[in-house]
C-alpha cells in the first residue's frame, strides 16, 4: 500500500486534533510507517509542551525593584521602570540642562548609599533605532565630556544600548566613526551593548552580531541600568 507524503501543515493540524476521518487515518498510517515523520511529530510535540511550560508561571511586575528577596526578575522595560521608581518614591527627579530641557534626569536619593567617589556618574540609555534620538544621545555625551574636560570636573559616562538601539554599537553602525572619535579623545566614556538584544538579533539574522571594538557586551542592559541606579548614577533616557 502506498502512503501519500504528509506535509508539516497536515501534521500540525493532526497534532491539534483538527483532522478526522480518512485524513486523520492516513496520517496515522504514515506515522506508523515512517520513523522520520514520527520524529518530526515528536519534535513539534516537545516544542508545544516547552512552549506551554515557558508561560505557565510568567513573572509579575515588581513594585519594588530594589528588593532582592524576590526570585522573580522584575522584567520591567527600563523606561517603565523609571516610572515605577518614581512612584515608589525611591528616586526623585530633577531637570538639568544637559542637551535640552526635555532630557529626564533621575537620581537615586535614598535607596543607594552615598558614594565616596567624587566623580559625577551618568548613564545614557538608547533603546531606539531612531536616528534623531541616537544623535541626541551622542550629542549629549559629547557635550558632557567636553564641558567636564574643560572645567576639570571629574565625570564617568556610560552609554548603554539595547533593543533596537543596539544598532548604535554594532560593527556596521553608521555612528562608528563618531564613537571611535569620542573614545579616543576621552578615557572616561564607555559603551555597553545588551547581550539579550545581541542574542535576539543573531537568532533572527542567523549569524553572530559583531560589536564595534569600543563596545563591551553586558549580559542585559536592564540589569546594568539597575545596578548603576543602585550605585547612585544619574540615568538619562535618550
Amino acid at each position, binding site marked *: 500500500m502506498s502512503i501519500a507524503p504528509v506535509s*508539516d*501543515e497536515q501534521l*500540525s*493540524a493532526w497534532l*491539534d486534533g*483538527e483532522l478526522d476521518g480518512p485524513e486523520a487515518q492516513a496520517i496515522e498510517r504514515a506515522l506508523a510507517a515512517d520513523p522520520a515523520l514520527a520524529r518530526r511529530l515528536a*519534535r*513539534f510535540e516537545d*516544542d*508545544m509542551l*516547552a*512552549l*506551554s*511550560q*515557558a*508561560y*505557565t508561571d*510568567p*513573572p*509579575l*511586575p*515588581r513594585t519594588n525593584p530594589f528588593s532582592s528577596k524576590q*526570585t*522573580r*526578575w*522584575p*522584567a*520591567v*522595560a*527600563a523606561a*517603565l521602570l523609571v516610572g*515605577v521608581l518614581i512612584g515608589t518614591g525611591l528616586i526623585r527627579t530633577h531637570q538639568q540642562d544637559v542637551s535640552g530641557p526635555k532630557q529626564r534626569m533621575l537620581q537615586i536619593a535614598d535607596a543607594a548609599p552615598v558614594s565616596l567617589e567624587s566623580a559625577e556618574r551618568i548613564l545614557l540609555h538608547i533603546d*531606539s*533605532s*531612531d536616528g534623531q534620538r541616537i544623535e541626541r544621545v551622542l550629542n549629549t555625551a559629547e557635550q558632557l565630556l567636553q564641558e567636564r574636560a574643560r572645567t576639570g570636573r571629574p565625570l564617568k559616562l556610560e552609554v548603554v544600548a*539595547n*533593543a*533596537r538601539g543596539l544598532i548604535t554599537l554594532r560593527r556596521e553602525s553608521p555612528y562608528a566613526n563618531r564613537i571611535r572619535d569620542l573614545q579616543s579623545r576621552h578615557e572616561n566614556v564607555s559603551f555597553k551593548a*545588551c*547581550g*539579550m*538584544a545581541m*542574542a*535576539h538579533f*543573531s*537568532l*533572527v539574522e*542567523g549569524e553572530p552580531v559583531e560589536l564595534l571594538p569600543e563596545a563591551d557586551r*553586558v*549580559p*542585559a*542592559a*536592564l*540589569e*546594568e541600568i539597575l*545596578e548603576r541606579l543602585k550605585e547612585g548614577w544619574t540615568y538619562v533616557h535618550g
Partner: protein
Amino acid sequence: MKLFSTQTRHGRQALTDRWRRLYRLAYAWCHEPQTAMDLVQDCLTKALRAQNQLQDEKSLDPWLFSILLNCWRDHLRGRKETQELDLDSLESRDNPEQNHSRQQLMEHVRLAMTTLNGEQRQILTLVAIEGLSYDQVATIMSIPAGTVMSRLCRARQKLRDALAALEARPVDIHLRRVK
C-alpha cells in the same frame, strides 16, 4: 449574563483563574509584565462594560481573548515605534529552585518566540497554550480557518528552527551581577 460574580468563593476563584490565563497570554505576546498587567486590566474593564453582549457562557473565553487581542493591537498602535517585544524584559534570572536545564529551555523558548511575528505568536499561543480550535482562533483574529492552519504551521516551523539553532549554539542569557 453576568460576567463574574464576586459574591461567592467559587466566583472569586473563577475570576482569579481567568485573570491568570489572560495574563499568561498577554505576557506571551508582549514579554513585559507591566504591559501584560495593563492589558488584562483593560480587557476585564471592557469585558465588564460589554458583558450584556455575551449570550453564551461557553464562548466566554474566546470572547475575552478577542477583547485582549484588541487591547494589544490598540496598545501597539499607540506606541511610537511598532516594536512588539522588549528583549530586556525577558525573564532571565537564575532561579535556584528550578532545574538549570529546564530554566534554560524556558529561556530558549521565550527567546525563540521573539523570532516570530506578532500574528504567529498570537495564533501559536491561542492554540498551544489555550487549546482553542482553529475555528475559534479564526473568529478571534478575523481570518479564515484555513489561514490559521497555514500560519500556525509556519509559526511551529519557525519556533522549531529557532530552538534548533539555540540547541546547536546555546546562548548564555543568564544574568550575572554587574560589579
